[in-house]
C-alpha cells in the first residue's frame, strides 16, 4: 500500500502525515490530524458541511485529494478563533442563535469567512447565493444571514476604526 507523504500548513501550523493517494483531505483532517470540527454530511460536494479554505479559496474538503494539499495553506474551523477570542462571525452566530444542532455551523462559518474576506459589504442576496452550497436543515437560514450581515458591519467598523 503506497501512502503518500504530505506536508502542508493547517491553521498556521506545519503538519505532516501519510495518506493513501485516494484519501480525501476531509478524511486526512479528521482521521490523521484529529481535527473533527470539519464534518461529512454527504461525501459528494452537495452539502458544504466539509468546507475548508485552501490557499484562500473556499472548497469542499471531501472533493480534494489529501496529496493535493502538499505545500498549501489549509484553514479549518479549529483555526477561526485566534488567541482565545472568537472571530466576529462566531460571536454573531451565537448572538443571533444562527445555529441549532450546529452540524452545518463549521462549514457555514468557513464559507461566511471566505465571503467577507472577498466581499466585505455583501447584500442579503449576494450572501444567500454565496452560502447556497452550505445546506442547513434546522434554521431556515434567516438568522444565519442576519448573523453574517451583522458580522460584516462589525468587521467594517473594526477596519475603519
Amino acid at each position, binding site marked *: 500500500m503506497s501512502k503518500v507523504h504530505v506536508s502542508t500548513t493547517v491553521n498556521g501550523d506545519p503538519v505532516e502525515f501519510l495518506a493513501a493517494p485516494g484519501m480525501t483531505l476531509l478524511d486526512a483532517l*479528521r482521521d490523521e490530524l484529529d*481535527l*473533527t*470540527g*470539519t*464534518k*461529512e*454530511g*454527504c*461525501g*459528494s460536494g*452537495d*452539502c458544504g*458541511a466539509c468546507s475548508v479554505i485552501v490557499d484562500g479559496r473556499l472548497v469542499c474538503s471531501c472533493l480534494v485529494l489529501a496529496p493535493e494539499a502538499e505545500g498549501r495553506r489549509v484553514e*479549518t*474551523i*479549529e483555526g*477561526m*478563533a485566534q488567541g482565545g477570542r*472568537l472571530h466576529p462571525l*462566531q460571536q454573531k*452566530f*451565537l*448572538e*443571533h*442563535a444562527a*445555529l*441549532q*444542532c*450546529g*452540524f*452545518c*455551523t*463549521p462549514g457555514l*462559518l468557513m464559507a461566511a469567512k471566505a465571503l467577507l474576506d472577498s466581499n466585505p459589504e455583501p447584500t*442579503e*442576496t449576494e*450572501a*444567500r*447565493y454565496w*452560502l*447556497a*452550497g*452550505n*445546506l*442547513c*436543515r*434546522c*434554521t*431556515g*437560514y*434567516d*438568522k*444565519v*444571514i*442576519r448573523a453574517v450581515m451583522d458580522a460584516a458591519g462589525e468587521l467594517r467598523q473594526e477596519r475603519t476604526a
Partner: protein
Amino acid sequence: MSETLEKPAVLPALTVVGTRPIRPDGADKVTGRAAYGADFTMPGQLVGKILRSPHAHARIVSIDTSKARAVPGVKAVVTGADFPDLASEVHEGGESASNLRDLANNVIARGKALYEGHAIAAVAATRAEAADEALARIKVTYEVLPHVTDVLEAMSPSAPVLHDHLFTEGLEARPEKPSNVAKRHRLARGDVAAALQAAEVVVERRYTTQAVHQGYLEPHACVAAWGQDGRCDVWSSSQGQFMVRTYCAKILGLEIADIRVTPAEIGGGFGGKTTVYLEPLALALSRQAGHPVKMVMSREEVFRATGPTSGGVIEVKLGAARDGRITAAQVEMSFQAGAFPGSPVGAATMTSLACYDIENFLVTGWDVVTNTPKVAAYRAPGAPIAAFAVESAVDELAQTLGLDPMDIRERNAVVDGTKASYGPVYQNIGYRETLAAARESEHWKAPLGPNQGRGLAVGFWFNIGGESTAAVHIAEDGSALVVSGNPDIGGSRASMAMMAAEVLGLPIERVRPIVADTASIGYSMLTGGSRTTFATGMAVVQAAEKVVQTLRERAAKLWETTVEQVEWKGAQAVCLDPAKADKKPLTLEALAAQAGRTGGPISAQVSLNAQGAGPGFGVHICDVEVDRETGQVSVVRYTAAQDVGRAIHPSYVEGQVQGGVAQGVGWALNEAYIFDGDGRMENPGFLDYRMPVASDLPMIDAVLVEVPNPRHPFGAKGVGEVPIVPPLAAVANAVSRAIGVRMADLPLSPPAVLAALDDAAA
C-alpha cells in the same frame, strides 16, 4: 376533578425567562469542538459496514459468510440469525407504539428483504477496505418477488403481499386473507352523509404527496463496545439515549442496566433519530470481535435505509353553507408505512380537522405497507400531509364562495370549550389569538406583484408531556449544574439553564446545563413530540424549587427561625422574622460554602410524568411568484404566527418556527423520493433530493403569540412541530391563486406547474 384553571399565575418579574442569552454550549459548536456521533473514536476500534438488499422484495434463501470471514482483518460477521427472535410485542419506549419484532427485523432482515437497501448482514474489520472486501464476498441467494411501492397499488387485492401474518386491524369484521393494509383508523361525529346532502356548497378533490426525508445533515453514527463482563457502552447520535438503551436491550436480549448509552451531539433529527438502525448491529459485531466497533452511514444509506415519512393519497369532501360555515367534512387518507406497519396516518386522522368546529365528519385513515424504507417519525408525523389536503380544500371552498380565506378560518375556528374533532374539549388554546396576529400582520395587507399569489394555511399539533428526570446540584462556590437526559437539538440546554436560573435567582452564566448518559440521570423519554421544554423543563423547575426549599431550611436553621420566615429572593435568603431583624441576607455562595456543616450537599432530582401538554396552533401566510414560461416557483415572502404559550428563549422558539417553515417549503416545492421500476430509489443524495438552499428562501417572519399553558410553571407549550404543518398548503394555495389552477399534487416542481398552466390554457 381538574377544575378549569383560571389564567395561570405567571411569575411576576421574570428576569431570565423570555430573554435571549447566548446558549451555554454555543462556544463548542462554533469552534468545532462539539463531538457528534462520527467524532468518537476508541482505541482498537473496528470499522463496521452493512450489506444491503439490492431487491425491493425478495425471500432470503441462504447467506454464506464463510468467504467474508476469511478476508484478512475481518473480525466479525453477523446476519439476522445472530439476533434473538422477538415476540411481536408492542413497546412504548420509542415515539409512537412501535412493534419490537418489526423494529428488530428492520435493523437486520430475517427471512425476507422488504425494500431496496434493507440490511442483510454486517461485518467489522480492522480497515475499511477489508470491510468492503468482506461485504463483496458474502454470498446471498435471493428468491426475487414482485414488489409494490405505490400506496394505492399496494392496497389492491392483486398486490404482492409483504407479510403473510398481516390482517387489517380496526375493521368491524376480522378479514380472512392477509393484505398490505395494516390498520384502519376512523374518527366520526354526527351524520356526514346527510349533512353533505343538505349542504349549499360542496367541494371535493383528491390530493397526493410523495415520501420525503427528514434531511438531517448528520448521517447516523455510533461506537459500541461490548465488555468482557457483558456490560456494554454505546456512544451514538440520537434523539434519546434512553430509547437507544431500551431498544438495544430488547433486540439483543440484555438487561437494560447492562447498557450505558452516552449521547453524542446530534446533528439534526426531526423525528428520524427516534429509533435505532446501527447500534444493535455495532453491539453484536463488538461482542463477536471483542473490539469496539464504529459504524457511520453514508448519505446514500441514510436515504435508502432510514425512515422517510409517508407518501399519501387524501380524498377530501367539504360541505358548507353560503356564509362559509362548514357543516360536513369527509376525509379518507392512505399512507405508505414502508416495509412494516406504523405510518403516522393515525395522528393525521386526529389532526386533520383539529382547527375546525364541525358538527358532522368522517375521517378514515389507512396504514399500508409498501416495499419502501420503514417510515419513521417526521416532525408532527402525518399532520402536514393531512393539512395539505384539508387546508387546500378550505381554500378552494373560500374561492368557490367568494370569501376571504381568513374569514372562513375564523368563522369555523375552535375556541376554549369547543369539542375537538379528536375528542377532548379545548382549554387555554391560542388559535383565535394566532389568527388575529396573522390578520393584523403587515404582510396580510401588503399588495401583490404580477404573477404572484398569496396562500393562507393553518395547522395544529398535540404536543406531548411524558416521563422526564432532571437534577439540580449546587457546587461549593454557589454555581449550579442542571442535569437532564434529553439530547439538545435546538437549544434546549439554554432553556433548561434559563428555567433553573429563574427559580434560583442566578444569572444564566452561573448555571451549567449537562445532558447526561443513561447511567448518570434517571429515565427520560426522548427529545421529540415538542416535549422537552414542557416536560423536562417542568422537572428542572421542580428540582430547582426543591433546592430553594433546602436553602431556605438551611438559612432558617442558621437563624434559628422557621422556614416560613425565610424568603428566597435574588439568589439569597432574606429573614422576615421580626424577632431576627438583625439577620443580614445569606447569599447562595454563603449557604453553599457552609453546606457541609448545615446538613450536606445541596442538590435535588425530580422525576415526573408531565401531563397536560398544551396543543399548539400555527397560521401561515406565503407569497410566491411563478415564472409562467418555465413553471418555476419562488417564495418571495413568508410570515408564520404561532401560539407558543410562553417563549422561554424567544430566539430558539423563532428558530423552530423558521426551520419548520423551511422544511415545509422544501416538501411543497422540490423534495420527493423517486423510485424506478425496480423499486430502487433514484435520488439518494443531496444533488437530486433537493432540499431548500439559502438562496431559495426569503427571511421568514416568526410572530410569537403567547397564550400561557397553566400546566407549565412558566406557561410554556410545545413549539417544535406545529410550524411544519401549514407550509405545504400555504405554498400550494399561493401557487394555485397565482396561476388560477388548483395544485393538488406535491411536489410543485417546475414541470408540474407548467403542465397545470397548459391545462388551464387548453
